[in-house]
């Protein structure tokens, strides 16, 4: 059994290395498959993966609906940006900034989690939505000299390169995966599946929910730190409600609780939005319509292809029309 897990982690390590080398080769000026414009998309994609994996732990695995993820991202973004601007953008400082951003978000997540995680379902969603907005408005109005108010912070050194986002996302993935496949991960799933049963089995609901929330917001902060070094200008309005919805969309599209699904969905949605950029006016309409279609096919328990077959098979269609079920 131990050998098996070692082989597995070796395979994982090798595939990460292969992915890294492959993307690097595609980015080379001589190959130019991923040109500088696409490179920015690739960076955004990895930031999205980090964000969505964190939210997946909270919403998908532990079942606590959160609509305030962008708020925690902004905490990470602002604290990391401030740190780098006050010091320098040497590698050590960038790593420190990422850590500070992540920890700041996790700390606020902890404070906010204690009261809000008593709520369930829709109520929790509304509460986190409100808290996300509160974070945004506080950032906008507190200490204009330090945080720049509505205009935000500009002139942040562009410290985020491909390596930063790639390894940021890989570390996030490994941590979430290891957590999921441990006793803590099972406890998180148990809380999602049945709170009463989980509690009767000796699981402290509050602790597990706060744990998931803190880890999730930690990675939101990390993603925020990577984001501010990627865009160079951050404004409170970048971290509004719509950003939270964007992240949630990735998680839902990839499947709640499915971490590989989250990665694939983050890639797919970014590719989709690039592919649609030639249709400037109708772009958002097509994008939205595609999302509706994907959700229609994806919803329920059967895999996509089973559903397609069911929908397009005539005999079954007729049968279902006449049978009373």
């Amino acid at each position: 059994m131990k050998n098996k897990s070692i082989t597995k982690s070796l395979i994982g390590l090798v595939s990460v290395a292969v992915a890294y080398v492959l993307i690097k080769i595609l980015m080379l000026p001589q190959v130019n498959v991923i040109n500088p414009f696409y490179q920015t998309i690739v960076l955004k994609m990895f930031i999205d993966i980090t964000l969505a994996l964190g939210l997946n732990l909270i919403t998908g695995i532990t079942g606590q609906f959160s609509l305030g993820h962008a708020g925690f991202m902004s905490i990470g973004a602002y604290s990391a940006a401030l740190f780098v601007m006050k010091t320098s953008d040497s590698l050590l400082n960038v790593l420190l900034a990422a850590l500070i951003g992540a920890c700041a978000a996790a700390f606020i997540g902890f404070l906010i989690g204690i009261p809000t995680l008593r709520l369930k379902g829709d109520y929790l969603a509304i509460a986190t939505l409100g808290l996300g907005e509160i974070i945004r408005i506080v950032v906008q109005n507190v200490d204009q000299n330090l945080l720049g108010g509505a205009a935000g912070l500009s002139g942040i050194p562009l410290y985020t390169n491909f390596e930063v986002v790639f390894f940021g996302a890989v570390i996030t993935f490994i941590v979430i995966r290891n957590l999921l496949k441990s006793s803590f991960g099972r406890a998180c799933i148990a809380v999602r599946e049945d709170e009463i049963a989980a509690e009767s089995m000796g699981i402290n609901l509050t602790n597990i929910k706060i744990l998931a929330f803190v880890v999730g917001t930690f990675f939101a902060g990390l993603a925020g730190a990577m984001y501010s070094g990627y865009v160079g200008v951050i404004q409170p309005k970048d971290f509004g409600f719509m950003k939270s919805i964007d992240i949630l969309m990735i998680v839902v599209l990839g499947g709640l609780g499915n971490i590989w699904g989250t990665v694939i969905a983050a890639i797919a949605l970014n590719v989709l939005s690039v592919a649609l950029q030639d249709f400037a006016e109708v772009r958002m309409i097509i994008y939205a319509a595609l999302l509706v279609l994907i959700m229609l096919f994806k919803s329920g328990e059967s895999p996509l292809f089973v559903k397609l077959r069911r929908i397009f098979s005539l005999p079954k269609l007729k049968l279902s029309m006449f049978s009373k079920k």
Partner: protein
Amino acid sequence: MSVLKVRGLNKNFGGLKAVSDVNITVNQGELLGLIGPNGAGKTTIFNLLTGVYVPTTGTVRLKDVDGNKININGMKPHITARHGISRTFQNIRLFKNLSVVDNLKIGMHKNIRHSIFEAILRLPRFIRDEKMFEQQAMYILSLVGLQDKHAEFAMNLPYGEQRKLEIARAIATGASVIFLDEPAAGMNPSETEDLSKLIVKLKDEFHLTVILIEHDMKFVMNLCERIYVLDFGSIIAEGLPAEIQSNKRVIEAYLGEQVE
């Protein structure tokens, strides 16, 4: 030697007295039955003793796994679970999207000795705990006859096996006192027969004290050593199965008064 002592237990829901002045003594290693007509308050008593509800008044004294006597009334379910109380549910509450063996491991989560960082970094203490959980879980599964289905999702098991899995999960917590809420509900006579053998086997294997609610009278009378009868929230009779069967008040509670 009593392992659980309930004194003057009351529970009101608004104006409704769901449980009134209940006294129950459970001896170590006993197989105790709790019966009564529908709505008598049996499940409410289970919920009070396991911490799902807080009693309005009354005390529940438990001799925990280490032999210390403590008051557990008003404690939350996850705390009572830590003191060695576990249960099954009337309407099965398994973790449907987890495998059979993982369902058992959740019962063991409270016994972990590693921190979350050790789990993320896969340090030796995490691996040792996981190995121990796996062995224990597989052993319990082999006793209830589910070892071949350990990788199956809990929701894919047939009904009778889901019931067994719930019992196995309750045992996996390492509890010394186990509450079974209608374990034989929906089972046919031969399944019920198997179940009572299984309960006796598990009780002896793990030195359990078992308290069960059941409507199947044949099952209760054959299996239980002592029986409490509940009606409208109060205990109306207590005794050996044979005594209960001939008790006039019990017959009245189930069948109504005889017309003169």
